[in-house]
């Protein structure tokens, strides 16, 4: 891999993307959707705020979960055709015959696709900056943004790998969406069903056996990795309680609770922190990153030439 080679491919892909699509409209409508959502959510939360809880915390959590979902919907389309699409247009082979290495091509294409996703994420930055002044810690904002950025990269990488493995761009696009569906919706469904099956067989819930099924879920990773906010004093009981109205914190505590051993008795009153709870997100994030890295390795192998084997139905040129 060479920096100049990656840069050349990256700029080339970027130039093509900028000149191809009606990206101004796409970016414009994307920004509009994000800001309409933020505005409406703000109105709802501000109306609902009967106590002194800062509105920025639920606003930030809701916004990031929404943006993650939206980006997951869009990301597969960014890179799912970047290799087999080039092959279909007859531009891949001439590129492979140059002095660019397969790694240059794969990494350049990944960075180009990824940066499109990051631009989409960047349109939420003003809203994020505002929520930081409204109760969200800077650490949480930064960590959450980094995790979303990594998850976008994972979806781009997996889609890129599929576009290298499959001869037809329509198939790789479809399978990229299947991948997003599998981690986004399939994972909680699988967890829920497995949990129910185990519960009927053995009596007490054995979620501790199947918690890992939730781990690759991007929303779980996002929520659980978000640093906890400082606890606050409940104004009625005077005890310290976790920050209420915090979707990320609540979801994170929930999935950590799933890992508890069977027969665990919830203490009362609810403590601010369960020191024995183990985080789920490191597994989920590691699994996602491993899938992304694996897809990139496959893509690079597919681009390596001279080719010994070709994917079924592929012509080099």
């Amino acid at each position, binding site marked *: 891999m060479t920096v*100049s*080679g990656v840069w*050349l491919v990256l700029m*080339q892909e970027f*130039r*093509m993307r900028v*000149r*191809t699509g009606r990206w101004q409209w796409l970016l414009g409508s994307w920004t509009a959707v994000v800001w309409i959502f933020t505005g409406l959510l703000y109105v709802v939360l501000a109306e609902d705020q009967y106590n002194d809880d800062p509105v920025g915390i639920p606003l930030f959590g809701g916004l990031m979960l929404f943006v993650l979902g939206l980006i997951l919907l869009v990301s597969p389309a960014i890179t799912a055709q970047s290799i087999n699409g080039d092959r279909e*247009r*007859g*531009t891949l*082979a*001439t*590129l*492979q*015959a*140059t*002095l*660019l290495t397969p790694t240059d091509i794969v990494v350049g294409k990944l960075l180009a696709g990824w940066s499109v996703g990051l631009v989409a994420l960047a349109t939420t930055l003003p809203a994020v900056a505002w929520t930081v002044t409204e109760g969200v810690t800077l650490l949480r904002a930064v960590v959450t943004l980094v995790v979303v950025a990594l998850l976008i990269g994972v979806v781009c990488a997996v889609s890129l790998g599929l576009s290298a493995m499959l001869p037809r761009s329509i198939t790789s696009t479809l399978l990229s969406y299947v991948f997003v569906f599998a981690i986004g919706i399939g994972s909680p469904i699988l967890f829920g069903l497995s949990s129910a099956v185990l519960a009927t067989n053995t009596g007490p819930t054995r979620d501790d056996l199947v918690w890992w099924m939730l781990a690759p879920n991007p929303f779980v990773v996002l929520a659980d990795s978000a640093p906890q906010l400082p606890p606050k004093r409940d104004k009625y009981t005077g005890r310290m309680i976790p920050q209420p109205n915090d979707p990320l914190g609540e979801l994170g505590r929930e999935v950590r609770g799933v890992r508890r051993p069977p027969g665990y008795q919830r203490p009362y009153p609810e403590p601010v922190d369960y020191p024995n709870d183990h985080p789920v997100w490191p597994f989920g994030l590691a699994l996602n990153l491993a899938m992304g890295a694996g897809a990139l390795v496959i893509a690079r192998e597919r681009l390596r*030439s*001279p*080719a*010994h084997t*070709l994917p079924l139905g592929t012509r*080099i*040129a």
Partner: protein
Amino acid sequence: MVDGYGIVARDVCRSFGRVHALGGIDLTAPYGQVTALVGPNGAGKTTLMLILATLLAPDRGEVRVGGIDPVTDPVGVRRQTGWMPDAFGLYDQLTVAEYLEFFAQAYRLDRARTARRVAETLAATRLGEYAHRSVHVLSRGQKQRLALGRALLHEPRVLLLDEPASGLDPHSRIELRDGLRGLAAAGVAVLVSSHILSELEEIADRIVFVSAGQTAGEYEVGDLANAGPMPWRVRATDPAALSLALVELGLAGGAAGAAGVGGAAATAPHESGVVLPPMLEEQAADLLAALVSAGVRVVAFGPVGGHLESAYLALTGDQR
């Protein structure tokens, strides 16, 4: 392996699943000459080109491009090889100059050389006026010129062209022919595959016939003329006089058994002339002399379809 050869392939085999695309092909392409790769569709020409262009690994056999093995050192081969595939795409969103710049950089030319080569290529391909226009406005012939210019950006010593003349109008083909002759004169080993046999006869120094993944014959173009007897066509201002003279010479009607031409008869007269049975050049020259001395006013006399076509049909005749 001989140093004077830009391309040497020995007993190269390649299969795709159960399809044997190449079954032991042999080929040499010397520097300073244009070698033509000729054969029917599916004979393995493109497969061989892909192997030479370092994109496909052979199952078996020895390959050297510029003295380098493309399997063990593909980068070394790419540095000195230009390749133009038969079907290719251009980046439609780029301008002509951007397209060339991109590939110059992909071939790791430094900034100064990139600028120089892009300018030279724009001039050589006569695409200067399109430098800042989108690639997709180019005509087919212009796109072909651009692709050839692209293949030559890094000044390769070996040039691989897969069907470069397909779809070109006569004017563009003449340009291509002159361009390739110029490259060969500059010492480049040019390998060109084509179906347009009459063109190849003027472009190529050497012809390699391939059929069903194997080399069917490797000839100097000059030798093709004497490769074997071939049919000749003769036309005269007065077809009736020509027919009469041919009958007298024992070459028409029921006068079978004429010496030296295997007893075959000439075809019936036609506006395009009379096709004579297969003869060697010496025999044909004798016949022409006889016709002229018999007072027939001959205006055209030559091998039907050219030497190359005759040799091609003879070598691949079973596939017609």
